[in-house]
């Protein structure tokens, strides 16, 4: 855990702190005793081979496992010092503050406008003018406004996959979260759409803390400030992205980086 010390030396404010996190699917221990500090307004990449637990880890950060029958989470996950798993905490408010973008673009079968304002609406915003403002602001922030402004009231399902994924990001931005979790958001997209998403993530970290699972090490290297490596349900090490890719401290990380694991 030498690298973690290096991050501390940067004296960054922590947005999230994960302590002794365990996730079980029935009897299967999918994430074991993970600890991680997530700095505010930076991009944290989670990497590792398939089945290493990186998505499992990510979904524990906004209590998405609550929706999975048979999944159980122990340990502490805190946002600005408050444990999101504490008794009396409503998972609905947690997911309001910690948004999530999924692997496959999953817009609702509604218009572009209705997709973006879905969150504000469920949180009680009914003023049409206000909703229109939120819609424009969110689409601009997701770099989709120019492509979407003339078809706001057309179905979101007629957009390309890359546009749909940026729409999903706009939809998350519309509820004004503090942290955005992304689960391989570009894995279903072509290279051009992927690079647009990557540029967007670079923009987002000015205002948001981004935690992104990616199966592409090149992507992690391009877009993240910090990288965490997982293997077989263990969090192996964390460091600045350049350190992890140039001089990892753990042999297993090095093996993965140099391509000795699939």
């Amino acid at each position: 855990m030498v690298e973690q010390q290096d991050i501390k030396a940067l004296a960054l404010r922590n947005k999230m702190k994960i302590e002794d996190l365990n996730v079980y699917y029935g009897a299967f221990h999918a994430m074991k005793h993970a600890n991680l500090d997530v700095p505010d307004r930076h991009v944290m990449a989670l990497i590792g081979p398939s089945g290493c637990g990186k998505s499992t880890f990510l979904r524990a950060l906004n209590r998405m496992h609550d929706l999975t029958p048979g999944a159980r989470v122990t340990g502490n996950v805190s946002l600005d010092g408050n444990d999101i798993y504490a008794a009396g905490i409503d998972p609905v408010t947690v997911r309001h503050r910690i948004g999530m973008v999924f692997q496959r673009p999953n817009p609702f079968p509604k218009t572009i406008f209705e997709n973006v304002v879905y969150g504000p609406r469920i949180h009680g915003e009914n003023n049409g003018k206000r909703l229109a403002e939120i819609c424009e602001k969110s689409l601009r922030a997701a770099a989709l406004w120019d492509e979407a402004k003339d078809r706001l009231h057309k179905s979101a399902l007629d957009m390309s996959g890359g546009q749909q994924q940026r729409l999903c990001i706009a939809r998350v931005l519309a509820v004004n979260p503090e942290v955005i979790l992304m689960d391989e958001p570009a894995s279903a997209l072509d290279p051009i759409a992927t690079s647009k998403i990557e540029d967007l993530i670079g923009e987002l970290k000015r205002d948001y803390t981004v935690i992104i699972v990616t199966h592409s090490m090149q992507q992690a290297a391009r877009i993240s400030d910090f990288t965490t490596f997982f293997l077989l349900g263990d969090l192996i090490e964390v460091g600045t992205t350049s350190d992890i890719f140039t001089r990892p401290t753990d042999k297993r990380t090095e093996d993965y980086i140099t391509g000795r694991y699939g």
Partner: protein
Amino acid sequence: MARAMVVAPPAQAPGFTSQRARARRITDKLATAVLWTAASTVVALLLLFIGYLFVQGWSAISWHFLTANPESANAGGGIGPEIFNSFYVLILTLLFTLPIAVLAGVYLQEYAGIGRFRDIVEFSAESLATVPSIVMGLFGLIVFVSLFHWHFSAIGGALTLTLLNLPALMRVTQEALAGVPATYREASMGLGATKWQTVLRAILPSAIGPLTTGVVLVSGRIFGETAALIFTAGASVSYGASAYDFNPFHTAETLAVHLYSTQREALVPDATQIANGSALVLLVMVLVFNVTARVVGSQLTKRFTGKAS
């Protein structure tokens, strides 16, 4: 294994023209032909059936027949009130059945998870679904007609049909919801929606097409139901001020029951003709239900999801 085959083909490699290849090709063609015939038989039977009813019943159909009151002793009676009653009982039935069926279906599919209570509800629904409609009719006779002293009534018939069709409509709801991609649920919950908001705003709108299709199809069955209604809604039209009677506590013979009772016990000299005409009208109505189910279902899906399906 596959690689070994490539390296060392069997001594008698099946060529393109070998005896065995030809035999297999013929078998394959034969199988296709048999399967096609079986599938076509379904269509042929339907066409035969419709054709027969048209030939038999067409001469009975007239505006007078479709709107006039039935006669009890003379020729020339119509089926107007029966058509009205069929729709009236159907609407009453849906009024009772839909809320329970949809809410129960939503609960089972979205809330119950896997567990004992869900098993009990599903087992109950399946058991209810296997009760023969004549038995349900006798139950309605005992409870609604005798015990409640409602005599033969539209509401008694509708409640009996509710018992009969509740399982099917619950199943329709469950299947419509099961067809909604899990990603919509995740997306909605991920944006901080509660479960109820997710059901109301993301899931039900996406399921509205298949749900409507299912409801209309079940409606077709309700429309044609006979055995459960003979002893509950009755086999005669209302003796109130008009035979077109909205009072749910009055007797309400439906078209399907009329077909049965005309053939069985009517004194009118043209009973056979009336039965043939009624059968044709009933069949056409049910076919209309089936076609409507498809058209309306896909229109709603398009409207609510912006997607052609």
